[in-house]
């Protein structure tokens, strides 16, 4: 439901007995700042940035903030999810580390060994691009289809490990969205390291989440296509080994009723074991929808924090779908872009519990 003018903004609802107590970190898409708020919506910390987000910030266990910024003069800076710079700040906003590449996009992840996983665009060789089906012929970007490269970057900026999609995935193995322009092939939008060292990746344009074997680069597991996911975001692995993912529902198959879902999948059985499809009380499905962005996070008390990206709505629900906390972003950091509605969209949101190591010693 995108008509934002009549919606309440700020803290809308809070049930302090049921909600998972902690701080919520979010990055408005049309701003230059990262905000950390408490359960009442009060600001606890704010980092002012030089760059607009490309696409979000994350609080590390060290208490530092790792932030993806968007560099405006890059060759691909008008692509969805464009980045260009990664910056690490301390609590007070001092820059500790920086990494630049015009081809950075969407997601990044600080690994256990201190290195950083990044996503980069790279040109897909023309001969392979010709074999990729789906999308209007000629809708490539100046004749080029871009594919995904995942790199592990050392603190020094050197590349420790690299994965290029076409080395491990056949051009026709996964049906690509027939409606999306052919400027990108798989369009990864998230990549994280799993406890066993393998990587969990979301490929938006083939509606698939996959686990990549870190040793061989092979796809060990995949799910979502055809027909389950539609341009999803934000996969994570839960402690029970299941995968939680935000299924945006954009360009979904069938009647094209626009609604999002958050789904938990058991990768051992490829079975959906839990889902949230909107508020209770009838199937008000389309009241929960974000065509783009968005995230989901399972919290230690088994609640789920959901960021409905395009409306800037961050809310927490129990396993039984009861709403226990809701906050709608309204921070007027800069003019919202005309294509993105009067709502103040947010790419993703994270809740850090009071015992999170990165918050040790912080007064709030």
């Amino acid at each position, binding site marked *: 439901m995108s008509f934002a003018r009549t919606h309440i903004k700020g803290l809308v609802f809070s049930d302090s007995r049921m909600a998972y107590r902690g701080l919520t970190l979010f990055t408005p898409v049309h701003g230059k700042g990262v905000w950390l708020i408490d359960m009442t919506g009060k600001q606890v910390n704010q980092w002012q940035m030089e760059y607009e987000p490309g696409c979000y910030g994350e609080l590390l266990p060290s208490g530092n903030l790792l932030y993806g910024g968007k560099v405006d003069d890059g060759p691909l800076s008008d692509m969805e999810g464009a980045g260009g710079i990664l910056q690490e700040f301390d609590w007070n906003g001092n820059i500790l580390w920086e990494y630049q590449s015009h081809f950075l996009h969407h997601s990044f992840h600080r690994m256990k060994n201190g290195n950083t996983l990044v996503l980069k665009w790279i040109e897909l060789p023309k001969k392979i691009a010709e074999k990729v089906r789906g999308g209007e012929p000629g809708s490539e970007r100046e004749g080029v289809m871009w594919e995904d490269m995942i790199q592990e970057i050392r603190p020094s900026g050197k590349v420790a490990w690299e994965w290029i999609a076409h080395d491990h995935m056949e051009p026709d193995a996964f049906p690509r969205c027939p409606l999306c322009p052919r400027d990108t092939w798989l369009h990864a939008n998230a990549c994280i390291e799993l406890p066993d060292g393998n990587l969990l990746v979301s490929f938006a344009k083939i509606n698939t989440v996959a686990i990549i074997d870190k040793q061989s680069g092979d796809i060990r597991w995949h799910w979502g296509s055809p027909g389950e996911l539609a341009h999803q975001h934000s996969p994570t692995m839960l402690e029970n080994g299941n995968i939680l993912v935000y299924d945006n529902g954009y360009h979904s198959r069938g009647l094209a009723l626009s609604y999002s879902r958050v789904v938990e999948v058991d990768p051992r059985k490829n079975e959906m074991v839990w889902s949230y499809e909107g508020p209770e009380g009838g199937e008000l499905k*389309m009241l929960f929808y974000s065509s783009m962005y968005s995230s989901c996070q399972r919290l230690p008390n088994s609640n789920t924090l959901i960021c409905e990206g395009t409306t800037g709505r961050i809310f927490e629900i129990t396993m039984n779908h009861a709403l226990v906390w809701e906050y709608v972003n309204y921070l007027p950091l800069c003019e919202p872009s005309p294509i993105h509605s009067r709502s103040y969209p947010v790419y993703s949101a994270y809740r850090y519990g009071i015992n999170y190591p990165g918050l040790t010693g912080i007064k709030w």
Partner: protein
Amino acid sequence: MSIAKTALKGVTYHNTQKTSPGYTLFSTYNYDVWLINMEGYIVNHWRMPYSPGSHQWLLPNGNLLFAGMIKSHEEMGLPVEMTAIGGALLEVDWDSNLVWKAMIPYSNHDIRPMDNGHVMYHSYYPEGILPDEIASRMKGGIPGTEFDGRVWGDMVHEVDREGQIVWEWKAFEHLDPELDASCMLENRTLWPYINSLWICKDGNVLMSLRAANEAIKVDYKTGEVLARYGKGKVFHQHDSIELDNGNIMVLDNGNHRPVYAPNYSRVIELDTNTDEIVWEYKADFPPDFYSPVCAGAERLPNGNTVICDSWSGRIFEVTYEGELVWEYISPFIGHQPNMTTTMMWRAHRYMADYPGLVGKKLNPKKFPLENKLFGPDTFNKHFTPSIF
């Protein structure tokens, strides 16, 4: 996000200098049809024996023509795409007394009163199901998603005052299975998924084909397709109508648009000779206006356009320049199969001099209870949005 807690209701904006004032007619999915004035006061209320299959018209004689739903698509064992299934055509007078009725078991989507008193309606009769040979040539849609292995084709009928069908049109006999192909992400349950009918000044019929992303003009005499409009411009559109200037106005819902960007709907006016877009309305921030289902638009005498944003239960009016001058958020909650919703199918604005309204007492005081519950004096009184 509960509807009541977070949204203003009723008339939320009214620029009295710039509207084309009149009375707005709409139905909700709970047996009610409402006529409201520009302030949002209820000036007539029809209570129907059925929930709406699609929508309703105020006829020039002051009666109401209404498509009622007798059985849902689920009860009839039909696919979800046929969720606007009807079953009954009713004409009732100003006080809801039955004047005329026709039972039309497979009616779906649009109904259109005709000058001769007949009613044109859209339907899915089993005889419209595509022959295998045509189904195999029909392009588009997701392979394997046929309904019990078959593709239901659309039909259009005209029923006279005696309830006899006097004209019928079968889509598969006249469409081109390649040229009029379905969207690649649609199910192959239906083709071409007609969702609006309009009788043009030349007597021919304008139809919106949702799955084929186009509007067509059909020769009333021969059934032949005379012209195609909007291909590549509209996506799962509704309500293609002919304007007084001869152009065609379409509500382009915009789902399954071949881009990767937040969804938005728009209203466009197409030149019938060139198929060029000569007028367009979309919201200043386009996703503010997005209805994945239903929706429609009408051009008003002063050049304004009244738009029914069906999914949000919102009716609003914009000037030719696109300025919002009136907005109404429906306070009525209704029920559709598997759905509780404020949605409406389509709204119509009638000017005060419309023949069907002449001589009618349009006094809100006739409906004290309704206005107490749903009128402008009640809504928003105890609710002030914290931030605009």
